[in-house]
Each structure stands twice: as structure tokens, then as C-alpha cells.
């Protein structure tokens, strides 16, 4: 007969706070007058993310004292890695939210109204009337909710639904850029089609695993892995398809085709959010799946995972070197970082979990910060109108002389991406690579070190470009300028920069915390 499930409300507070904020945000759209809408939305979202962060910290102390457990009839797990990934996610979301909300001269980075046809008279009217697409805030909150559930999901169905909850708002947000609307809409369509395609693969994997074990709960799958003889085909194909679906979200190489286009087309603030936070969520889920379900399959899955990791590192690095657009360069660099992170997944070593989460924090801070800065560097045409972002690398030449603070912080983020000592990137790489060596994946580490060295080349090239090259003189009289904003981006960038330095110089405190989160609850 029907037994009502026991729901652990206290443990669900972080998710409930965010979901509540998202729903209230939708109501705000309906009932709050337009003039004050943005402020209300911003305050609501920022408070919700901060509140969820506090709640996650509280749950962390509870888990430390009374141990991990399963929630809501086994749909979720409250354990160290999940809470740690959620905390990292919320910190990065809060910073990204500041960049998303920032405005320069009363205009944010989003189309005044998404329903207007680009270049139409109506769009012009909307811009003059000062409309703003404030639905961005509730959509972001929905995405963060999905990301929060994703690392904690303890069965594949919850994982699948969380994947969709985090993806659908991102598909929409990618199409809302204020300038270059066509590019943005196309990015949205591409992201959507390829995202739906990959979630179909995830789902087929889920179905095959269900056929194998008669359950989609990760713990029951883990128990069933060694037990069933003669059905390995189902298990292997199912696991591979699920991993493919997750690798797509991560942007690993054969499944990376969307990354450069979407990163370039999406509004820059959203790119920063998506690049940092989606990676955290997807890697945390990938870690859980690989560490809980597939340890028994190491030998069967290794060729596949090793190939993907090597391809991701090499292709990401090589293609980043040949790009001429700043956002595309950063996109390919993020692909290469996905490859480095995969080492920690493949390692199957306890240190790998904490290492990957630390790396994600370091990478996320640098990503949110650098995309925040990219959103400030704009093209100014001959008439003095400030328009879209200065995408081409050559437009960044000589920026170090005119805006030294911006250029220095951008250089800092690039050095962190490159993994230069005394930055967070170095500590992260060290943590992940040493876990991979401990897990016996040293050939991969050799490739990774070589790729890092090659990648350092193009990061340094950008730094040289900013500090030691004369600014170009454009024929049409356009130039590059750094816009003034309300200052939210500046706050986010400063926090990111300070974090990057601190995690590089005194990483021990955070490393000690990540080291405690080295075991998944089955």
C-alpha cells in the first residue's frame, strides 16, 4: 500500500531557497512595477544565493558531525562532495550574478526585449523606452537550482531532470545578447539542439542501465555491477552513453562542437556563468557517477575515457592557439581545462574528488573574472557610440597602458589559467595531477603537462599584446574603450582576483576542507 515518503525539509533548504526565489521572481515580473523590477529581482536573487550558501555551510557542519545520509526516498545524497560542490557553485553563481546584473549607462548586456525582431523599429522603441528583460534573474535562479541538485542526485532520473532544469534556462539566456542578436540567437539554437541531442543519449544510457539492474538508483547499480554475468554489454553501453551525455555538458572533445559558438554568441556575462557553474555541476555529477557506479568497469571504460581526455587537452590547446577572437580563445581554453579536470575523474583516487573540486573553484574564479572583464572592453565607433564587445584579439592591443588595473587583473586570470605558481590555477593543477599519478594515470599527466606548457604560450601572448603592443589604428575610426559601469562587475572581478591569489599563495585552508570531502555516500 501507499507509504508517504519521509521528506527531510531541513536538508533541502538550499534547494528550496533557490527554487522559492525563482518562483517569487516570476511573480515579481507580474506584479512589481517596471521601474523597480530590476532592483527587486537583483536583491531577491543575490539574497537567495547568499542564503543558500549559508544553508549549505550549515548542512556541511551537520554532515561533519552526524555523517552523510540519503534524502527524500533516496533521490538525493547529502555527503561531503555534494555539499562542497554546491558551495563552490553558489560562490561562483553569486559572483556571476553580479556580472549579469551590472549595467553601463543604464543598459545591461541583454536585449531590451527578446521578442523584438533584431534591427526592427520596435526594438528601437523598446531600447528608447528603457525596457529590460528582467526575466533573466528568475531564469538564472532556475539554472542554479538545477545545478545545485545535479551533484547531489542519487538516481539517474533525478540527475536527468536536474540536467534539464539547469539546461533549459541556459538555452534561453544564450539567445538574449543586446548586441549581435543574430549571432546570439544562432548560439541559442545550436546549444539547444546539441543539448537536447546529448540528453537523449544520457536517457538511452539510463534506459540500458535500468535494463541491466532493474533500478536507476546509483547505489543499486553499484551493487549490481559485479553481480550480473552475461549482461555486461548493457552495463557497458549504458554507462558509456550516460558518460557521453555528461561529457557533452562539460565540453570534452568529440562533444565540444557547441562550446566556441555558444560562448561567443551568448551574452558575455551569461558565458561566464555558464562556463564556470555548468562545469562545476557537470563534473561533480560525473565524479559521482564514475566513482560510485563504474569502479568495477575501470578496465573496460579506460580506453574510452583516456582517449577523450587526451583529445580534449590536445585539441583544446591547439585550437585555442589559432583563434583570433577573445571569447573563442577562452572557449577553447575552457575545453582544454575540461581535459585537465578529466584526469581527476579518471584517477579514481580519493584525492581526485577534492582535487577536482578545488580545480573547479580556481578555474571558476578566473573564468567569471575574465568574462566579466571581457564584457567591459567595448568597441567605440568613429561617432563615439559605444557598441558591442571588442571581440578581436588585436583590439586588445595596448590596453595595459590605458586601463592598467583591468589589464593586470586580466593577466592574473590568464596566469591562473596557465597554471603559473602562486596562482590558484597552479594549486588546482597540482592537486589534480598528483591524484592522477596516484591513480596510475601518469601517461595522461605527461600529456597534460605538455599541453599546459603549450597553453602557457598563448596566455602569455595575450599578456604581451596588452602590455607591449601599440593600440591599432582602425581605418573606420573605431577604437577600443573600457566602459564605466555601476560597479557590480568591478566587485566581482576584485573578489575573483583576490581569491585567485589567495588560493595560490595560501591554499592550505581550502585544501584541508576539500580533502575532507573525499568519499561519496553509496
Amino acid at each position, binding site marked *: 500500500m501507499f507509504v508517504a515518503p519521509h521528506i527531510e525539509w531541513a536538508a533541502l533548504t538550499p534547494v528550496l531557497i533557490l527554487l522559492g526565489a525563482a518562483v517569487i521572481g516570476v511573480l515579481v515580473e507580474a506584479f512589481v512595477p517596471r521601474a523597480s523590477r530590476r532592483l527587486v529581482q537583483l536583491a531577491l536573487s543575490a539574497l537567495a544565493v547568499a542564503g543558500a550558501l549559508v544553508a549549505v555551510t550549515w548542512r556541511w557542519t551537520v554532515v561533519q558531525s552526524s555523517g552523510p545520509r540519503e534524502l527524500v526516498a533516496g533521490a538525493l545524497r547529502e555527503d561531503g562532495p555534494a555539499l562542497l560542490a554546491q558551495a563552490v557553485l553558489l560562490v561562483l553563481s553569486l559572483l556571476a550574478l553580479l556580472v549579469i546584473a551590472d549595467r553601463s549607462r543604464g543598459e545591461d548586456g541583454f536585449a531590451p526585449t527578446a521578442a523584438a525582431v533584431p534591427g526592427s523599429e520596435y526594438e528601437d522603441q523598446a531600447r528608447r523606452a528603457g525596457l529590460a528583460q528582467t526575466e533573466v534573474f528568475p531564469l538564472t535562479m532556475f539554472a542554479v537550482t538545477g545545478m545545485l541538485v545535479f551533484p547531489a542526485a542519487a538516481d539517474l532520473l533525478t540527475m536527468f531532470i536536474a540536467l534539464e532544469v539547469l539546461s533549459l534556462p541556459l*538555452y534561453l539566456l544564450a539567445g538574449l545578447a543586446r548586441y549581435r542578436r543574430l549571432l546570439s540567437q544562432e548560439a541559442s539554437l545550436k546549444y539547444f539542439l546539441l543539448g537536447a541531442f546529448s540528453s537523449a543519449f544520457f536517457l538511452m544510457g539510463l534506459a540500458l542501465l535500468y535494463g541491466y539492474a532493474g533500478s*536507476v538508483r546509483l547505489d543499486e547499480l553499484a551493487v549490481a555491477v559485479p553481480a550480473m554475468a552475461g549482461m555486461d554489454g548493457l552495463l557497458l553501453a549504458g554507462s558509456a552513453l550516460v558518460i557521453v551525455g555528461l561529457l557533452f555538458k562539460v565540453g570534452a572533445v568529440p562533444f565540444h562542437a557547441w562550446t566556441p559558438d555558444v560562448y561567443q554568441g551568448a551574452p558575455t556575462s551569461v558565458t561566464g556563468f555558464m562556463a564556470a557553474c555548468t562545469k562545476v555541476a557537470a563534473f561533480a555529477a560525473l565524479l559521482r557517477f564514475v566513482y560510485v557506479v563504474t569502479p568495477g568497469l575501470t578496465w573496460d571504460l579506460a580506453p574510452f575515457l583516456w582517449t577523450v581526455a587526451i583529445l580534449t587537452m590536445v585539441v583544446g590547446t591547439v585550437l585555442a592557439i589559432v583563434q583570433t577572437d577573445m571569447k573563442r580563445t577562452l572557449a577553447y581554453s575552457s575545453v582544454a581545462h575540461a581535459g585537465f579536470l578529466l584526469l581527476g575523474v579518471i584517477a579514481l583516487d580519493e584525492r581526485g574528488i577534492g582535487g577536482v573540486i578545488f580545480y573547479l573553484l580556481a578555474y571558476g574564479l578566473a573564468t567569471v573574472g575574465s568574462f566579466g572583464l571581457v564584457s567591459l572592453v567595448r568597441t567605440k565607433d568613429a561617432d563615439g557610440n559605444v557598441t558591442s564587445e571588442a571581440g578581436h584579439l588585436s583590439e586588445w592591443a595596448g590596453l595595459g597602458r590605458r586601463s592598467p588595473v583591468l589589464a593586470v587583473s586580466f593577466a592574473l586570470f590568464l596566469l591562473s589559467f596557465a597554471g603559473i605558481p602562486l596562482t590558484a590555477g597552479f594549486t588546482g593543477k597540482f592537486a589534480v595531477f598528483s591524484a592522477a599519478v596516484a591513480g596510475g594515470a601518469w601517461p595522461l599527466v605527461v600529456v597534460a603537462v605538455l599541453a599546459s606548457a603549450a597553453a602557457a604560450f598563448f596566455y602569455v601572448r595575450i599578456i604581451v599584446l596588452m602590455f607591449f603592443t601599440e593600440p591599432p589604428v582602425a581605418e573606420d575610426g573605431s577604437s577600443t574603450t573600457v566602459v564605466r559601469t555601476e560597479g557590480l562587475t568591478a566587485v566581482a572581478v576584485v573578489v575573483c582576483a583576490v581569491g585567485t591569489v589567495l588560493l595560490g599563495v595560501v591554499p592550505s585552508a581550502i585544501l584541508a576542507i576539500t580533502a575532507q570531502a573525499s568519499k561519496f555516500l553509496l
Partner: protein
Amino acid sequence: MSLVNYLVLAGILFAIGSAAVLVRRNSIVAFMGVELMLNAANLTLVTFARMHGDLSGQVIAFFVMVVAAAEVVIGLAIIVSIFRTRGSASLDDASLLKS
């Protein structure tokens, strides 16, 4: 007749759907390919549910339907807004992004 027949049919439908996504340039057709793939996965789930004598496969398929419905709304809204801008729903027309 064995239940495996259903699984093979699901595999064929899944492959046809994925081929449509890869081959067709019209975004609406490509999207229908994705829908077919989701349905193939559902057929697999329902068949395995019967094989294991366990209803959770059916429940999962039910959730997949809900998810697919939400996805369709978003996808078609994106396609319509692109069509209004460009007068075409093709993935190739005026491809601004380098591939």
C-alpha cells in the same frame, strides 16, 4: 516473439533519430529527430519494466514525457524567434558563426 524485439525496434528508431539530427539542416526536422530518440528510450524503459516486473521504468518514461513537453516549448519558441528574425528555420542559412 520475445521482448527483445521491442528493444531492437527501439534501437533502430534511436539510430534513425540521431541520423536525422546529424543530416538534416532544417532545425524543426532535426528537433523531431531528437523527439524520436527520446521516444525510443521510452520504449526501452517500458519493455525493461515489463521484463523486470517493476513499474519504475514506466514512471521514468512518464517523467521523460513531461521533460520532453517542456523542452519542446522552449525549442519551438527559439525556432520561431529565429524564424522571425531571419525568415528561415535552416541551420545553414546565414550561418554567422564559423563552424
